[in-house]
């Protein structure tokens, strides 16, 4: 599973990445988490709220820190 966290490095973005890492550890899902900070790359995903979470090329959430339950649901699908 390819998980991408899009965000220029604001506090919310770091929090999001941390949450995702926690969920992965807890659920034991095989996933590759990548943080995307380059504005050009972020823009090319067509999202404009940061942080955004993209899992296997599907936008899961934009513009807010996702709830832990939601992340768990996304990765355990």
């Amino acid at each position, binding site marked *: 599973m390819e998980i991408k966290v899009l*965000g*220029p490095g*604001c506090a*919310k973005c770091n929090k999001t990445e941390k949450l995702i890492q926690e969920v992965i550890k807890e659920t034991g899902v095989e996933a590759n988490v990548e943080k995307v900070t380059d*504005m*050009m790359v*972020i*823009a*090319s*995903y*067509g*999202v*404009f*709220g*940061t942080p955004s979470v*993209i899992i296997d*090329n*599907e*936008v*899961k959430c*934009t*513009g*807010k820190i996702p709830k832990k339950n939601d992340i768990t649901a996304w990765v355990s*699908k």
Partner: protein
Amino acid sequence: MKLRSRIEALAGENTSNIPVFLSFLLGATAIYTWWVVYGFLPELSSWATYNLLPIEKGSHLGASLEFFLYDTPKVLMLLFLVVFGVGIIRSFFTPEKTRAFLSGKSEFAGNIMAALLGIITPFCSCSAVPLFIGFVTAGVPLGVTFSFLIAAPMVNEVALGLLYGLLGWKVAAIYLGTGLFIAIFAGWIIGRLKLEHHIEDWVIQTNVAALSMEEEKLTWNDRIIYGWDAVKEIIGRVWIYVIIGIAVGAGIHGFVPEGVMASVMGKGSWWSVPFSITIGVPMYSNAAGIIPVVEALLGKGAALGTVLAFMMSVIALSLPEMVILRKVLKPKLIAVFITVVATGILFVGYLFNMII
């Protein structure tokens, strides 16, 4: 997955009657309590200053402290209510919906819609660049995009809540009206100037992928949680500025003699408005820190138009935002942006000094 959502739906059906009634009751009680406490604040602050502490009535320290003890809880309580309310309204909007709505809109009507949506669309200044690219590549006209980008920081719920709490609803309404006015006209003028070729080239060349996105369905419970999250996030961030701002304001209130600001920021001096803007533009503070100071200045003889201009230039135009926008805009467009917005603020400042 299917089963789970069915179970959730069933659970929601079974319990929905009681929680709706209960949360209504809880909400009503909370608002009533809020109202009662709010009404008692003036007496409480006066009592705390003069009875609880050994301070004489009429002293400078007393005036400052009473002001501080009254304004701090008052402003925080108002902010709580406004941020919560706006948070619930915001849960109905997303930048994506706003973009879809604005793309292909005609110029003038588009500017008006963009400025209004700028107030209620959840958006943080750190995502100004992706938002800009998202808007422009989706066919939202440049001027309309600017109307959104100007209104979003300038007219915000924290500023409105503070202005209402400290200066009354009239000043809050004037701020809302003139802020929208500047956002609409500055955006419209930038659109008329045909500056599209001053956007950095890579923006236009960016291939925006059309990714699939699940539309979120929010219940009223979700919206209340959304509002509550907004309260935690925004008040958690600004409370310290509010307190510092009010403390500085309280100091001015108690110790600076009446009328001392009249010569610098009063109506009499024509240069006071441009001077205030020149100081305000490079300053970077949020509404929470600047408005309590502004209130104290008004009490000492500063003119409303001048103070309004100062406040707007601090909140709406800031150096960090320009640095972020520089990634997508060529220097000339940034210069035009600053000039047009500053001119609008200048106009508003003079207008209010003239009519009030």
